[in-house]
């Protein structure tokens, strides 16, 4: 049994079918990536797992139980965190408050302090800046904060929606290193990326999405070497 199973998931926005019945799964301990062009339905997939968007068909199972249809706070309470696209840190809260609010449902104050320490260890920069309004951080720092905030809920699965978007290459490299570290500390990762190259390099497995469908799946290395993937998402033409 997989930790997370998506079966025939469909999502409609008004009349537009953004997800046309997709199937995939994530096993405990894995890094799984969904890659695909803009508008393919990647963010919609994560939003429906989080409960922000209602599925119009299919189901989502987590730890053997159906979670589709539950409210977002129930889903985060069960151990699925989302680091949303565009970071979405609370600009009017300090760095430390942004972390604390990530553990909003945790009533054990000591446990929250421990989570904060863990996040500080992963991102020492956040500790240096803990008093600062999150809106005044640089893009890279905001991304660290968004990831740190996602970890504060002590998730079993951390879902990240394009964490590298709009960041300088050096910072992107650092973020991917941190994602590996998070995974090695025992957190399962579901990662969305347009930077397919970097994502496939760290992922155990990947799925390719095209306009609401999953068209291809395989291990990270297989997809990296797949001719159609290389052509469509990695910007490299292969001969023959």
């Amino acid at each position, binding site marked *: 049994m997989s930790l997370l199973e998506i079966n025939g998931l469909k999502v409609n926005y008004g009349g537009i079918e953004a997800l046309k019945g997709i199937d995939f799964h994530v096993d405990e301990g894995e890094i799984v990536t969904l890659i695909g062009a803009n508008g393919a339905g990647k963010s919609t997939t994560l939003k429906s797992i*989080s*409960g*922000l968007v209602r599925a119009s068909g299919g189901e989502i199972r987590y730890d053997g139980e159906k979670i589709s249809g539950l*409210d*977002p*706070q129930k889903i*985060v*309470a069960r151990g699925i*965190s*989302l680091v*949303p696209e565009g970071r*979405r840190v*609370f*600009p*009017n*809260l300090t760095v430390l*408050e942004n972390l*604390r*609010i*990530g553990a*909003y*449902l945790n009533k054990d104050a000591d446990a929250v302090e421990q989570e904060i320490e863990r996040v500080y260890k992963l991102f020492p920069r956040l500790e240096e800046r803990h008093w600062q309004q999150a809106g005044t951080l640089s893009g890279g720092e905001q991304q660290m904060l968004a990831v740190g*905030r996602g970890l504060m*809920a002590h998730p079993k699965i951390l879902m990240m929606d394009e964490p590298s978007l709009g960041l300088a290459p050096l910072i992107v490299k650092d973020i991917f290193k941190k994602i590996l570290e998070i995974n090695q500390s025992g957190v399962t990762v579901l990662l969305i990326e347009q930077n397919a190259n970097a994502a496939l390099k760290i992922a155990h497995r990947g799925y390719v999405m095209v306009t609401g469908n999953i068209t291809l799946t395989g291990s990270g290395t297989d997809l990296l070497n797949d001719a159609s993937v290389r052509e469509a998402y990695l910007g490299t033409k292969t001969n023959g």
Partner: protein
Amino acid sequence: MTFTTFIQHVLTGISLGGAYALIAIGYTMVYGILLLINFAHADIFMMAGYFMIFAMSSMPWFIAIPVVIVVTVALGLAVESVAYKPLRMSPRMSIMISAIGMSYLLQNLAIYLFSALPRAYPVITPLKQSFQIGGVSASLVTILTPVLTIVLVLLLMFLINNTKIGMAMRAVSKDYDTSKLMGIKINRVISFTFIIGSALAAIGSILYFTDRMSVTPFSGILPGLKCFVAAVLGGIGSIPGAVIGGFFIGISETFLVALGYSTFSDAFTFLLLIVILIFRPTGLLGEAITEKV
């Protein structure tokens, strides 16, 4: 104008301003979280006036006051859950119209239940005690209002800046979806905002009507509009802004009346609104107004 009459008017103005500030906070907080101008707020304030009349007819003042606060909060929550909650996902204009409808509904309900004739507001004896300092005479309510306003505002600022629910309020005011991802129940935070706004309106109502003697179903309209302007002047969404706006309007109004321009004093408020909207729509302390995503 002699120095003592000047001081007298300053006291009266600050006192009126304090009551305005308490009501303006309700507008500004609801706007901050729902981007809604809660037109019914003025009528909740008016209803609190009637609640006090009935409470005082059968209870001593020190029991009547908490009872009125609780009943007013219940009314504020009822308005929220009947008129606004079902429209959470609707366009903002629909909620605005619902707010205007709710305002008229409460006024008409008051006419139906209590008739349109003025009803005498009860005298809360200790509040009416008067002082004589030098040539200046003032009743306790005049002194108490600004002091109580400042104390309540400091408590409210502490709540918003230093407690978990306050942090959630600040988060929800910026971003619903991300707040939900944190596990925050948006509706609970919104209800909490209405609880605070209505409780302050109840207190403001007691302080305001104690100086006015009577309540009618239309008693909320003018003070409500003035407090709305106070909130816009201070920068809608900003609590310190609403307080500054409330005091500014209370003091200006008092002085206009004292100088013999009482017919102009209400027009002044609206002139002020127009001037702010033209020259500084974000108000004194407001941040740039952004559409919620």
